[in-house]
């Protein structure tokens, strides 16, 4: 079975998570070897996942920690 690009796109997420059936994985792999477009889609998706998971994407607001721990202290004193 030879699969086309659109078919490969449906497998990208599973491919990245390594949870495709062996036969599906092989087909995708074979396709990727000769298809620049699908390779670029796979590479860009993988790259985007790495970037979005980086903790620098979300900065804590200034003073967030201080306010949080002060509130927790109040709670601890309340129940003490």
């Amino acid at each position, binding site marked *: 079975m030879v699969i086309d690009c659109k078919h490969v796109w449906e497998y990208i997420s599973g491919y990245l998570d390594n949870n495709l059936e062996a036969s599906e994985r092989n087909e995708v792999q074979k396709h990727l070897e000769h298809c620049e477009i699908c390779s*670029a889609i796979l590479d860009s998706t993988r790259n985007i996942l790495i970037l979005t998971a980086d903790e620098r994407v979300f900065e804590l*607001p200034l003073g*967030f920690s201080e306010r949080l721990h002060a509130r927790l202290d109040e709670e601890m004193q309340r129940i003490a």
Partner: protein
Amino acid sequence: MVDNPQVVDEAQIISAIVRGETHLFHDLIRPHERSVYGMVFSLLQNEADAEDAAQEAFLKAFRNLSKFRAESKFSTWLISIALNEARSKLRQKKAMKIESLDAGSEEDGHVSPAILRDWREVPYEALERKEVRQMIQLALADLPGIYREIFLLRDVEELSVNESAEALGISVASVKVRLHRARMMLQKTLAPQLKQVNPKRRWFPWL
């Protein structure tokens, strides 16, 4: 038994807190502050609401710590509390909301990715640039609620497929379908933008 305070693990800290050493809760949560905040901020899209929801989540975790069961990870438990806190805040502010959490049914067809001829890796250092961080935040904000939630749990907070299914109260199959669409939607939005970012500055000054 050797008692080495250097290797006191999370489970021991938790039982000490439950026994009354409440001040240890401060140390327990410090490593999780940023991820809890990032999670609720992505869902609420507003700093003040996110800070409120994050504080509430940590307070709830503190009050309910005795109910925490060691078979799950503390971080996973905490993220589930934060998710629920953010969801209930969204419900209160009917405005933003329901529409965004419900948008996009399971039946919506597939999502086509952005077509590119090649891809040049965007390195971590790009995140030092505010415009790049904002690009990512906006793309996340644009995802319909059900896709944003699964993406945050699975790809940002790194919960397993099963843990994500449990946190969201959906099936493992739905997790996979939603996650796939979320990733493709992000690729579709972000890949063309990130590709433009590259040439503005040379990542490898020696080239």
